[in-house]
């Protein structure tokens, strides 16, 4: 869903962040995508390739960390991972779990830059 506009957003954000390291090349971009983010990874990769073509980000790889849904089970008193998004119940005790701890992520976790022989001009 909206993978093209997501790719464009990612390019904008990465370009903005990479500006702090002039001359450095972005080798890869790592995303965190939650199971409930509804992003189709293949589409996103395809749109990414299209969007970065002819830009300084051309060739940068898109790496994806898939984030499972984690809920807090009040009965077990701990956070547990859901096996599927068809049932929001603790897989151990079966208690319905409405507190979502993780799973909706749609974020850029980090970028990998090659700044060999390039001085950075900003603090980390």
């Amino acid at each position: 869903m909206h993978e093209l506009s997501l790719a464009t957003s990612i390019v904008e954000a990465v370009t903005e962040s990479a500006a702090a390291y002039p001359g450095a090349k972005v080798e890869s971009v790592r995303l965190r995508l939650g199971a409930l983010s509804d992003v189709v990874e293949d589409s996103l990769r395809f749109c990414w390739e299209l969007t970065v073509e002819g830009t300084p980000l051309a060739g940068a790889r898109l790496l994806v960390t898939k984030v499972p849904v984690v809920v807090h089970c009040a009965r077990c008193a701990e956070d547990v991972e859901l096996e599927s998004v068809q049932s929001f119940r603790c897989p151990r005790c079966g208690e319905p779990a409405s507190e979502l701890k993780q799973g909706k992520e749609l974020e850029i976790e980090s970028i990998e830059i090659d700044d060999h022989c390039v001085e950075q001009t900003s603090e980390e």
Partner: protein
Amino acid sequence: MTTRIVELRRGILKKNDELAAGLRQRYTAAGVLVLNLVSSPGTGKTAFLERTLRELKAGGARAAALVGDLETDNDARRLAASGAPVRQINTHGICHLDAEMIGKHLDGWEGVELGGLDYLFIENVGNLVCPSSYDLGEKIRVALLSVTEGEDKPLKYPTLFNSADAAVITKIDIAEPCGFDRDLALKNINEIRPGIRIFETSSKTGAGMADWLGYLAEERAKKIEV
């Protein structure tokens, strides 16, 4: 080649999230309860909202609505018949409303000040997929499904139903001829969003509207406390 990792931890929909946070602050400052109504096309959002606006007006509450569609102002016209201020948002192809559109349509809305409202309803574009990711700054997200759509709707669209604060089953006056399995629908909604408040209504007959209006009043009262 030496490379290093620079942490960004930045939301991809950051722009919308920031605008939505701004709207949320604006709504709170104005003391208006804002609801985002989401459903498939044809569920009966407009009829439900029209009935809601009429009943709120009759009860002395001040409500307004923003309604999103790709094209036409048909829904805004229908809703305006309730006597409430209504403004149409035409997205011309975009399949969801976003915070920027809401902000733009709140500005310059003739005769409407957020501070003069008890409730603002936002009727989203008919779509159970894309609206789930776009925060409009709302306090309550309402997912609607009708008795004609199948009891497994929540299972088919878990992201949207899991993100909802309340659910409404519409068109209950025709549940029987549709062979609607009420228990199964309620079970499925709870499977995806345990403990969610569920309302069952008919905009035609008025069934279930009293409960729904009671909930709105409850939620509005909470807002004032905060």
